[in-house]
């Protein structure tokens, strides 16, 4: 099985980190992965994005044209990548920064105010983790436990408080997607 994904938002929202955490967790679960960032001179407010492929077999092209899963953290991202998401695909939309959501038929949408929810959790920084939670609940690309273990080993000694917020954000995302 092969899953192709694009995560996009403006710089600083953590779109590239969504890809990194998913790729790292999938790798720990024994999958082949590739993580290809856009590294051009992205405009402020534009679309810093990353293409991630997770596959049971060798990954040929790391370039994703038609993703199965897309996360749009802002409106330009939704406008740019929304139309290319495959039929039966999943689009996660940050309602707070995407005022215009025109839903396509045959595509699953989770539209949620990620900025607002992350503030309620207690830190803007965990916005991207809510999106990962949604993906975990909606797909079987990675398991919650794998990501939680990974985050724990990474953050436990450095910032235990942020670790707790991250885990809460992932769980919140999973709830939202139910």
């Amino acid at each position, binding site marked *: 099985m092969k899953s192709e994904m694009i995560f996009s938002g403006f710089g600083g929202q953590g779109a590239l980190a969504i890809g990194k955490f998913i790729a790292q967790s999938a*790798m720990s679960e024994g999958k082949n992965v590739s993580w290809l960032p856009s590294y051009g001179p992205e405009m402020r407010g534009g679309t810093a994005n990353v293409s991630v492929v997770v596959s049971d077999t060798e*990954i040929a092209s790391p*370039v994703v*044209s038609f993703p199965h899963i897309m996360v749009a953290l802002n409106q330009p991202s939704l406008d740019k990548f929304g139309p290319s998401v495959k039929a039966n695909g999943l689009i996660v939309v940050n309602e707070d920064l995407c005022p215009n959501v025109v839903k396509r038929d045959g595509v699953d949408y989770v539209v949620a105010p990620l900025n607002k929810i992350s503030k309620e959790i207690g830190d803007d920084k965990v916005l991207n983790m809510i999106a990962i939670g949604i993906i975990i609940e909606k797909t079987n690309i990675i398991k919650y436990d794998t990501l939680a273990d990974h985050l724990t080993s990474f953050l436990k000694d450095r910032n235990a408080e942020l670790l707790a917020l991250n885990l809460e954000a992932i769980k919140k995302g999973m709830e939202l997607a139910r």
Partner: protein
Amino acid sequence: MGNKVLMKGNEAVAEAAIRSGCRLYFAYPITPQSELIEYMAKMMPKVKGTFLQAESEVAAINMVYGAAGMGKRVMTSSSSPGISLKMEGISYLAGARLPAVIINVQRGGPGLGDIQPAQGDYFQATKGGGHGDYRLIVLAPSSVQEFADMASDSFDLADKYRVPVMILSDGLLGQMMEPVEFKEYKTDKEIEELGKQHYDWCIHTNEDGKGHHHNEINSLEIDPNVLERHVLNLEQIYKEIEKNEVKHEEYNINDNNEFVCVAFGTAARIVKSAIDDLNAEGRNIGLIRPITVWPYPYKEIAKTIHGNVKRVFVFELNLGQMVEDVKLAVNGKVPVEFMGKVGGLVFTPEEIKEKIKAYL
């Protein structure tokens, strides 16, 4: 999956170089290879190596010349415009028969171009670039793992033949993260031994006692007869390399191929996706991926052109450079079609499928 780590190509090749005994690295930053120089800046002090950010690319390659003259494993890296600046020094390295590793993380050109992936430096890497009759061994990776593995391969080849070796990568492979597994670190003792293999020609401290012989590192031979001998000697070495070191990958190459594609590096990854899709629809298309682009797998490509093959396709992220070598290999037996993408753009599998489908 063992000890796989998720790393950018730029970082992975730097780590692999250190593990294979590189303790001297000189470079000047440029996108999209800057993670490589950053990684070296961070790691070299930890292994008691030398990292030096030179004042320019020209200075960096000449520092490489000096260190290589000491018989040490030394490396530099840059991206296309910076590699052009290093060309004089590369010619000198070749002329003085110095082993060194040069990494080119290619970006769009000509001129300053842009910072996106491209393969426009194929001619420069494989046909010269610097002046005079010389060759570089040029390795073209296609994944982060292969990029990393090529670090130690390059040093081994450079040491074996006393020639500079180039890894011809691109911005996509430099920036992309993939799982990579590393070889063990060479021990200090092993690194010392590696240096000693060059004692008969390199500059080193007097450890021989009385009658110590002074070696000279030079690319100037003012007597034409001496220079002729030197260049003919180089030719012999290059012939030896052509005989021994050609490497390529065959992907779905078989006796019933109707089409054969040829692509290297990043382009080959995209082509694999495209032919996977077409073969799933019942076609039979193979891919040859040169791993060494000099020496070039002419014979290996020629072998795949049998009675059933109707056409050869070449895909490159340039206006058509390697296609000339493919045509030499195919030698007019079947038509050779080319599709390129320039400006730092990368073609999609869909574009490649469309090109091939036009000839079905």
